[in-house]
């Protein structure tokens, strides 16, 4: 009995965490290079729409995913152009991207689809043998392809950031752009790459919602998830593993409060149950009380050679 409860909550938590993982990992790349992108939610929405519409019209989920990545890349490029080349105030340009993505996705939805419909999205895949492990198997290895990819991205992004030249450049450019520049690194180009990569991942985050987890598109499908993802980057201390912890913590508590509401075990008003993910995320971060925070020092500052 207790096993099935744990399985239920944990599976829900993993599904809920998936879009946060994609978006937050993407944002981490961008922030480590020194660019704050508050427009993640808007890019997610455009990615979700692109994936849904493409998959619906072509019947191919792979093409849908590709569409989301392309759209995400384009919006990431736009953000990079405004924030890096035009050196705009990054907080504002991010919000501009958010409003733009929010409005455009709804407009396209209205004009090309009109009503809500559902799609047969990425199915659940049972990984052979691993999914037969009691409890753990049911939780981890009977999920959706895009869920697996999201979790796989955690070690992959760790590797890229810490063990590849690109990752090194990204981190250098965010910590000390003047030094990196003097060593011959093209600061702005690296930032472009990081922010565009962030856009691609945000696009996939949106696709994970519209063609894998929820299998539907509607106006404002993400309901502000992108902003939570940005907040989780700070929780994770700009480290993929920390991010995983944050996304899982937030989502598992969310799944848990749903279960509390359903079972009615603790008789608290629904509003307080709904508060739990936010309260507990703060409390856990406070309890961790890190001394060293590897903040990218150049975050939110455009690079001016000799300026």
């Amino acid at each position, binding site marked *: 009995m207790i096993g*099935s*409860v744990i399985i*239920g*909550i944990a*599976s*829900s938590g993993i*599904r*809920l965490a998936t*879009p946060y993982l994609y978006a937050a990992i993407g944002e981490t790349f961008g922030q480590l290079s020194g660019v704050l992108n508050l427009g993640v939610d808007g890019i997610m929405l455009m990615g979700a729409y692109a994936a849904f519409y493409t998959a619906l019209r072509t019947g191919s989920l792979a093409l849908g995913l590709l569409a989301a990545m392309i759209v995400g890349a384009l919006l990431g490029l736009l953000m990079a152009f405004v924030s890096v080349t035009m050196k705009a105030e990054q907080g504002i340009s991010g919000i501009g991207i958010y409003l733009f993505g929010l409005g455009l996705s*709804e407009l396209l*939805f*209205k004009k090309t689809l*009109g*009503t*809500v*419909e*559902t799609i047969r999205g990425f199915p659940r895949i049972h990984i052979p043998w691993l999914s037969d492990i009691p409890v753990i198997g049911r939780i981890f290895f009977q999920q959706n392809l895009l869920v697996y990819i999201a979790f796989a991205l955690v070690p992959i992004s760790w590797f890229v950031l810490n063990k590849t030249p690109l990752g090194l450049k990204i981190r250098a450019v965010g910590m000390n752009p003047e030094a990196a520049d003097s060593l011959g690194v093209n600061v702005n180009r690296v930032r472009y790459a990081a922010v565009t990569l962030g856009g691609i991942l945000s696009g996939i985050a949106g696709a994970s*919602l519209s063609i894998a*987890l*929820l*299998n*539907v598109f*509607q*106006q*404002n*499908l993400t*309901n502000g*998830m992108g902003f939570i993802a940005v907040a989780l980057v700070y929780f994770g201390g700009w480290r993929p593993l920390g991010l995983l912890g944050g996304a899982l913590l937030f989502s598992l508590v*969310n*799944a848990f409060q*749903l*279960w509390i*509401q*359903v*079972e*009615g075990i603790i008789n608290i008003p*629904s*509003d307080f149950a*709904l508060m739990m993910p936010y309260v507990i995320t703060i409390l856990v971060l406070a309890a961790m009380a890190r001394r060293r925070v590897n903040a990218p020092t150049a975050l939110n500052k455009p690079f001016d050679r000799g300026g």
Partner: protein
Amino acid sequence: MKTKLRGSLGALLIGILVFSVGFSVAAAPFRVAAVMPSSISDLAFSQSMYDALLAIEESMGSENFEFSYSEGMFIVADAAAAIRDYASQGYDLVIAHGSQYGSSLVEIAPDFPNTGFAWGTTVDTFTDQGITNVFAYEARSEEGGYVNGVLAAQLSKTGIIGVIGPIETGDAKLYVEGFIAGVASINAAAEVKVVWTGSFSDVALASESAETLINAGADVLTGTAQMVVGAVGVARQRGALWFGTQSDQTSLAPEIVAANQVYDWTGTLESMIAMIKDGTMGGTAFAITLANGGLKITVNAEALVGPTIQGIIDGTIEIEL
């Protein structure tokens, strides 16, 4: 000569008279403006009003009826500006389709005594404040909720039924309470488990709420607000039945959407239009109910007995007479 002149003058006068009467008979179209909080394609609250306006346009004809709308007006200040603007442009009826618009109407309606206003969903027409040009309308959604509940209780094999709602207020609260009462009337031992997601648009949370409810044993689900599309998807995936409200949600998942309570505001709108044309600008509270046809229950045979029909067709069910 004079007689002829008088005759032709008379004929001219009569012609002018007939022409002007005819002209006024082909009167200016009745103009309605609607201010709505969410999108007209939300498959829920706002869409129901938009669909009703479209239906009236079709039945009255576009020479006799015109409507404009503002959607996504959940910000009250913006809605107030819209309502005031429409009123000052001479619309005959301005519909404030959102319970949050009440305070705005109290300020605006007295400034436009020749405009009819309608406020929904509510029962308050502000007559106690001396305002005479506001209609009120609401949906007795607990009626359809009760019917859905009765049907749900009979269809549920596990005796556990799940509900997914936004915030426990207003129309959602009425529907859910009606639903619970309907279930209890058939099966007092049935459990109805309710999840409130705290938002009208959190599709992901609605979807996981459905998963959690089904994990807890629910095999029949219902819910209200535009976010339930996520829950319907989960219900389809896991083979639970779905009961919809506010609009016909069958198209989302025909195999499992068993029945819907559909809001049809056309009767209410027609009454208001008639009253305004007659000179009464407000003061009546309307309700759409099962009795007056404003609430309709659509039942989807495919979800209810589709497998049975298919079984008979392909022979897996043998009928023993």
